[in-house]
């Protein structure tokens, strides 16, 4: 039970984060590499609140998500006005900046050595419960007028604005929600590993998440979750050759873009596959 249980918990955590990324990149079309920063914010918030202030873990997790969401929102307002590449670069800058702050603000975060002794509150039921609830909420959001708005911003932001959509507002909203999801995932990670380090939340982490979304299909939530399962399992199975892991990620990203940019599921959902045309 222990080993498999651990894998399932990890799967739930990754899946929550990746759903956030799916919303941002897959459904709203914003390419970003900032996810690790939001996970870091969630993780450290939860860690500090539970260890130093005796806050109950449930509230700490929510607080982590909320902090990440607020930061995402504040950052999004000025930066999401810009399209594509500008934002991507800004998001890399964000991850690096947050990692630097975490490493250097030793009094609060204990620096690069990491933050140990976090209560192991992320048990199997907790992880699964969070995953299920957040998955349902995400599916609901996408199947609503907001989902249509996000997709419109992705597919043709000009046409979207000429349908009366304030595209900047929807993009920021998407980023904020995605930040919340990554923050919660980070908090759950802190409660699972009981130890967090700034280096756990670097560009590699962001890239992992992005590659899961790309692999699963930009615009398919079920594809994203499927990819998350596959990639998490493969990573665990191939732990012995983990030095090749990043090389394979990179290769997969390129291969998918060249051969099958729509990923596994394209923009279809597993649960819609049998709908009549």
């Amino acid at each position, binding site marked *: 039970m222990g080993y498999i249980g651990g894998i399932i918990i990890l799967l739930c955590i990754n899946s929550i984060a990746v759903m956030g990324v799916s919303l941002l990149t897959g459904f709203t079309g914003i390419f970003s590499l900032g996810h690790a920063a939001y996970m870091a914010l969630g993780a450290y918030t939860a860690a500090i609140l539970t260890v130093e202030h005796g806050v109950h873990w449930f509230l700490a997790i929510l607080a982590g998500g909320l902090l990440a969401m607020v930061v995402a929102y504040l950052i999004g307002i000025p930066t999401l006005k810009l399209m594509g590449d500008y934002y991507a670069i800004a998001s890399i800058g964000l991850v690096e900046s947050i990692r630097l702050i975490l490493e*250097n603000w030793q009094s609060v975060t204990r620096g690069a050595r990491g933050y140990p002794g976090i209560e192991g509150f992320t048990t199997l039921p907790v992880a699964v419960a969070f995953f299920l609830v957040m998955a349902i909420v995400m599916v609901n959001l996408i199947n609503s007028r907001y989902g249509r708005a996000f997709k419109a911003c992705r597919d043709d932001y000009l046409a979207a604005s000429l349908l009366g959509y304030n595209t900047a507002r929807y993009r920021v909203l998407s980023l904020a929600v995605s930040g919340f999801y990554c923050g919660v995932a980070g908090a759950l990670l802190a409660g699972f590993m009981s130890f967090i380090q700034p280096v756990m939340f670097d560009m590699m982490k962001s890239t992992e998440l992005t590659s899961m979304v790309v692999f699963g299909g930009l615009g398919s939530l079920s594809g994203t979750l499927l990819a998350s399962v596959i990639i998490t399992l493969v990573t665990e199975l191939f732990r012995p050759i983990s*030095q090749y892991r990043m090389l394979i990620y*990179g290769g997969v990203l390129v291969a998918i*873009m060249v051969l099958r940019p729509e990923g596994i599921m394209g923009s279809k959902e597993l649960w819609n596959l049998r709908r009549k045309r």
Partner: protein
Amino acid sequence: MGTLAQQLINGISLGSVYALIAVGYSLVYSILLFSNFAHGGFLVIGGYICYYTLTVLGNNIWVAGGLSLLGAGIAAVLTERIAYKPIRERTNITLYLLIASLGMSIVIENIFVIVAGGRFRALPPVIPTNPVHLFGLTTTSAFDLLSLVVAFVFLTGLQLFIVKSKWGLAIRAAAFDLKTAGLMGINVNLLISIVFFVAGMLAAVGGIFLSVRYTLYPQLGGITIKAFVAAVVGGLGSLPGAVVGSLILGLAEMLTAGFISSQLRDLVVFSLLVITLLVKPTGLFGKKPTEKV
């Protein structure tokens, strides 16, 4: 006074190396309108070829330099042909190119992690780093002066190429409108290959100097994020902008490191990015891309 002058020279020297990288990156952006995240990979390739040539074939910097420029240029062209060409021929969604470039940057970096190992390597000391006294006012290292001069030479060469040569004219036309340039008879694929070759070459020069300054390791390519910031500050797609942005960045970094704190230098870089994005997102010289409705 002496320290200020020192840091100024340091800053300009560092900035000029950034400029080499930023210019190549901005050049690609001006033609293909996407941010090539793999650009850092070319830098690393340049550094490693130089290192291996120096250690294996002897300490001739000209040979090592030449091979490394050539190698990085070829690698850049190959990257374009393998990863970007098939995508850009099928679709004009730049998101796919962005993701592919991210993938290529990871592939290149990790090839070196596996092949060369993660160790920090110092280049054999062929580039002089001894102190030089300037006009009795201050001391700087020969290295700083040399990198400044070399960068200047290459950038001037690039400028001449772009302004005076036939292909330079083609590049300027393509930067204005790629499709029309193609319709005017320019071989677009060849043009793009040339642009990537030049970008790779410039990145390699930058890579060599950065390897001496910071030692060589596979993740050195990560430093290109600063070149990206410089290019954004100067205006994506503008070559003079990339140079100006790089100099500003180099100066800001060195002055911060020298007078405030070494830890904060990177934060200053990203603050510059944030300020630019807030105040004038198109940068100092950038043009706003207008879409025809």
